[in-house]
């Protein structure tokens, strides 16, 4: 035990001596969570659009005014000919063009019907669809105003209540996600590098001939990183409470427990990576190239998993981050207790055990 404590101490010295890495380790998560908490949102705001108005009458003017008054759109320019639309899109200046037909007001009065084309640049289909829906909603509202009470007959009025996030803030969605990414990548990367580093520099041999058991070596290596990651997690949670006003509806203790569990599973994954790679370069490429995009895309961080094709929904189950995101959203926003997230917790425990088991099996006591 004394030997083991000595070994852990040595690992701590290693880490604290490298001031620059330490600075990066603590500075970066803070910088990232601040940046993303404020900057990323999948709402649309201030989208630049253009107008092609063939009638230029009172009604079209009023519609244009309504649209530019909304916070979603700002009218960047007027187009005069249909042929110009393509060149405006090609330069990427606007995302949508509204095309009013000729004699708009006249048609509306005479035939009770007039047409507007909403032309969107659908190279970004997600945004295009949202823009189209929003403009449509504005027009619908305007139409209702014009019709006054004409159409009211039977009305079922939906009274919608948005629970867990009444203001529909996207921060609620992104803070748990960014926290997960940071913990996952930092923990997995740090451990995988620290073990392969010993291999690459040749100091692994010294450790192997020491009286420490292989398990002690691994646990001793991982221990300081658990400590560092826990500090990171605390910083992130504190930031999200005080700066982004994230609620913690559930138990803080449970949140802490689940975070430690997730950190351990990420560290176990890091150990696994280090056992299969010979150089730091390989270890880093696996933990960066192999983990970054899958964790961002398949964890439900940005894109809803339920909407993905079935095979991807199945694949997403092997991403530990997915389960952790479900858990922390549950605890922080819904205020649930362990009785609601025990399944996810068990899965994380199982994954951790699995990573550990393989690492122990693959861990070589001898060098080739």
């Amino acid at each position, binding site marked *: 035990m004394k030997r083991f404590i000595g070994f852990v101490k040595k690992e701590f010295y290693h880490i604290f001596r490298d001031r620059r890495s330490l600075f990066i380790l603590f500075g970066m998560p803070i910088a990232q969570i601040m940046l993303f908490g404020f900057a990323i949102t999948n709402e649309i705001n201030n989208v630049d659009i253009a107008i092609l108005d063939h009638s230029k009458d009172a009604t079209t003017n009023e519609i244009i005014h309504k649209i530019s008054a909304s916070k979603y759109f700002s009218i960047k320019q007027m187009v005069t000919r249909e042929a110009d639309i393509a060149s405006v*899109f090609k330069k990427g200046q606007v995302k949508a063009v509204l095309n009013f037909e000729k004699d708009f007001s006249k048609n509306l009065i005479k035939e009770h019907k007039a047409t*507007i084309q909403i032309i969107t640049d659908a190279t970004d289909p997600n945004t295009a669809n949202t823009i189209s829906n929003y403009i449509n909603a504005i027009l619908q509202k305007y139409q209702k105003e014009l019709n006054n009470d*004409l159409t009211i007959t039977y009305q079922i009025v939906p009274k919608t209540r948005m629970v867990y996030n009444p203001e529909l803030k996207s921060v609620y969605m992104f803070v748990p996600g960014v926290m997960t990414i940071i913990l996952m990548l930092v923990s997995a990367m740090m451990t995988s590098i620290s073990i392969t580093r010993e291999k690459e520099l040749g100091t692994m041999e010294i450790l192997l001939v020491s009286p420490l058991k292989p398990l002690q070596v691994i646990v001793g290596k991982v221990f300081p990183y658990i400590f560092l990651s826990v500090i990171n997690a605390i910083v992130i949670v504190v930031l999200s409470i005080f700066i982004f006003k994230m609620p913690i509806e559930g138990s803080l203790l449970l949140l802490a427990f689940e975070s430690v569990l997730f950190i351990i599973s990420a560290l176990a994954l890091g150990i696994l990576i280090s056992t299969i790679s010979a150089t730091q370069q390989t270890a880093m490429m696996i933990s960066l190239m192999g983990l970054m995009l899958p964790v961002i895309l398949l964890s439900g961080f940005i*894109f809803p998993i339920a909407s993905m094709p079935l095979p991807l929904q199945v694949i997403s189950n092997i991403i530990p981050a997915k389960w952790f995101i479900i858990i922390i959203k549950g605890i922080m926003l819904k205020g649930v207790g362990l009785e609601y997230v025990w399944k996810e917790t068990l899965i994380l425990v199982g994954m951790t055990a699995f990573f550990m088991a393989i690492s122990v099996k693959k861990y070589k006591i001898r060098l080739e």
Partner: protein
Amino acid sequence: MKTILYIIQKEFKQIFRNKGMLPIIFVLPLLQLIILSNAATFEVKNIKFAYIDNDHSPTSRALVERFNASAYFDVLTDYHSQTIASKAMLNGDVDVIVEIPRHFERELQKEKHHSLAITINAIDGAAAGLENVYVTQIIQDFNQEIKVDLMQISDNQIQPINIETIPLFWYNETLNYKTFMVPGILVLLVTMITLFLSGMNIVREKEIGTLEQINVTPIKKSQFIIGKLFPFWVIGMGILTVGLIIAKVIFNVPIIGSLLLLYFYTSIYILVILGIGLFISNFTDTQQQAMFIAWFFTVIFILMSGLFTPIESMPQWAQILTEFNPIKYFVEVMRMVMLKGSGFLDILPQILKTFLYAIIMNGLAVWSYKKKK
């Protein structure tokens, strides 16, 4: 010139000798391109929908049937009370709950007016907004229907005004998000591979101690750097090529613009990334440090590139920051040239900015690389 060729040869040999790295460089990115391009959709489908029917009338059943028929909703069982339904929502089994009150039909016929309580899980705000739109649409349609059903005499007094909107989705009529995501993810992969490889390269020689050996040879600073970076440039272009083939063959992404222009832009773009990598490499002592920094910038570049979330929605200061994000320009150019067929003049601003960026980054990198300690 001959010296550079020898260094390039050495670098290529080193890359291809490391058997563990080869699949990571060449297979992993392309595999990710194929798999992950399917993931990035903001469409909201398969919404988990539940209802509490306290009325059990023909009208309430017809309303539920409406939701059942919609492609967006997966209708779950009828919950008996709000408590059970709320529990299911806590558990994550339900996203939308509609509660139909007692005497719904009777009151609707009498008062011509009735409210309907809808509860939506709004943790994902954007999805909740869309879900709300779908629910409202279904109820509105239903209103139209019961108007016909419940009104005996159709009092066709004044025809209401109708503004008809025709949505046109240019360049991607079916709103196929893969058309957008495949080029975008390809950009990320090219960037990550070249940045990580170049960022680790020189610092590795430093850490192992072989940099000193090279420093005592008569190789010039510029020769060494060109020789070091050229192989990664080739790898980046190679991944772009294979990625474009995958995009065309597997995903059938249209390539409308000029491929030559795309390659021309990419060749400048990779220089920027290599310059950043080299700069990081020069300023760090260990590979670990280098990777942390590279990782930090990559996550920021990726999430602020406009690929997953629109840049226009960011606050002003964040939009200014994105001006320094090379990935943003590459994503724009890919989108413009491949999908819209933009020409040289259309993307000239992006080309100029990237070119300037390349000069600055490589200048800094060469300047910061010192042969002596």
